[in-house]
């Protein structure tokens, strides 16, 4: 029996598999396909203080091994979430976190404060990395000062688990991670989507109404893995890894790189039962490799004491 639990500040996940915001709705969209009580947690769709219609159609373009989206945080606002969605999902037998976004620091703070009142929401994921909105979003997450500013404001009113979702669209993600850690973030999740673009050559038009959008899926996995590795070696708070995870092996790679838990995102669209299968697959991996707990997998990549490549195995740490 492998101990799959993941202990994060203020909450314990049943296992390290969560579902990424914007790819899993509010969880209820998926109950025909999997058992929510078999996954560690779900992070519900990005929520803002007020209703947002999002960007015009077309908002999506398929790419090789992935997709671009430009949804732009369409949601009905935090009060609708509290009054209408929350009562429907609060008894789900899994950790439910709310992804919080905003156009101003005050938006973030107010939205977080309202969600804090919900008993069955043990944490929020602060989205300072959405590439698809004109104001806020990624603007906060691409400078250490901007990221620190919004985290500091939210931390002052929010006392449950505060996860901060980081953008890969930066020169050095560890600077942002260290900045949010310094302002009291309890964990960081990475990566959000990679800024990209697609063109229809025959029609000579961009494929997205916003021209650029966020790339996700297996094509971004190596970038995500690299950033998780760098970040896990730079901060002391837990790192939640995501970006293109499509199998238990992918998930294990993120854990080995230093993640304490992982999120399944775009791959939910291809296989809506995937997160449950990944949780089961991680357990099998642990059994096969003699790990008594998933916790032991975190950062268990075999490298030498300086963190460099080493072979044979006997010379690694």
């Amino acid at each position, binding site marked *: 029996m492998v101990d799959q639990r993941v202990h994060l500040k203020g909450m314990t996940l049943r296992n390290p598999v969560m579902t990424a915001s*914007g*790819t*899993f*709705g509010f969880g*209820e*969209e*998926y109950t*025909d*396909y999997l058992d929510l009580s078999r996954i560690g947690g779900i992070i519900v*769709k990005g929520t803002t203080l007020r209703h947002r*219609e*999002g960007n*015009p*159609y*077309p*908002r*999506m*373009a*398929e*790419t*090789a*091994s*992935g*997709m671009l*989206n430009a*949804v732009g945080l*369409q949601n009905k606002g935090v009060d609708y979430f509290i009054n209408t969605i929350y009562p*429907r999902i609060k008894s789900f037998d899994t950790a439910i976190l709310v992804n919080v976004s905003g156009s101003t620091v005050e938006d973030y703070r107010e939205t977080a404060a309202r969600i804090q009142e919900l008993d069955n929401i043990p944490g929020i994921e602060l989205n300072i990395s959405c590439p698809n909105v004109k104001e806020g979003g990624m603007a906060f997450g691409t400078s250490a000062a901007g990221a620190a500013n919004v985290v500091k404001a939210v931390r002052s009113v929010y006392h449950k688990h505060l996860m901060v979702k980081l953008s890969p669209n930066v020169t050095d993600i560890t600077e942002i991670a260290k900045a949010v850690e310094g302002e009291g973030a309890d964990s960081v999740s990475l990566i959000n989507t990679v800024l990209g673009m697609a063109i229809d050559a025959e029609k000579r038009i961009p494929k997205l109404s916003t021209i650029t959008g966020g790339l996700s*899926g*297996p094509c971004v996995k190596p970038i995500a893995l690299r950033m998780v590795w760098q970040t896990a070696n730079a901060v002391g708070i837990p790192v939640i890894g995501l970006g293109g995870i499509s199998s238990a092996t992918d998930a294990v790679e993120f854990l080995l790189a230093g993640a304490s838990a992982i999120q399944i995102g*775009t791959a*939910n*669209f*291809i*296989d*809506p*039962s995937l997160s449950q299968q990944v949780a089961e697959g991680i357990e099998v991996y642990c059994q096969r490799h003699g790990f008594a707990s998933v916790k032991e997998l975190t950062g268990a990549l075999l490298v030498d004491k300086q963190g460099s490549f080493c072979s044979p195995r006997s010379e690694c740490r």
Partner: protein
Amino acid sequence: MQRPTSHLMDCRLIDKQRLNDRYVLLIVETPLSISHALPGQFAQIRIDGSPTTYLRRPISLCQVINERELHLLVQEVGDGTKTLCALEPGATVNMILPLGKGYSMPSSPSICLLIGGGVGVAPLLMQGRRLAQAGHQVHFLLGGRTSTDLVMRASFEAFGTVNYTTEDGSLGEKGFVTQHSLLQQLNPGFVYTCGPKPMMQAVAAYAKQHHVPCEVSLENLMACGIGACLCCVEDTVNGHICTCTEGPVFNIEMLKW
């Protein structure tokens, strides 16, 4: 929120019929009953073995026979649909179905006009059958570029009268469906349509002009197909709503057309 039950399942391709140079009819056996599936609903089909295809492909249900036999009319458009159509009987096809909201039924016995273009005729066959079985008068008006585009004619003719248009005049009246003389003669109580967007918009204009209720089936680009990603939204009178869960069939009163 009440959602129709759908299933994620491995199905088996039991037969395949090439109908013309672009259309293939796939006949699939499902492991679970899909007798609750409604005309206008769709299946999200995983495409295996195409390196350029990542997402599932939404395909309208064309017929459901004896609880577990599903017919899908597929047009080869890109790598995804070409890969799907290259499968041979015996192959496994992973699908999520039935998804979305289908066509509604008239509240009283009605003359129903079902106008389809191209591969968009697929869901109209299933709806025509359902209408005929419920005692409504069924008229199909089907259009294509040329006669070979108009497939499965005998199947349609089993459930109602069928009129055709072709752009080259090789079958039925020459021109577009919206130019067919039937539109001046028939006084339909309900219009259902599926096909290219310009055609559906012309049909919607006809229905509005004649004050006839009309439902159209949209084919906005989808990623998840189950209401999670919010990619396939249509800008309706109620704002952006998902085509995959609130559609793909919409009453034209909902649309900003």
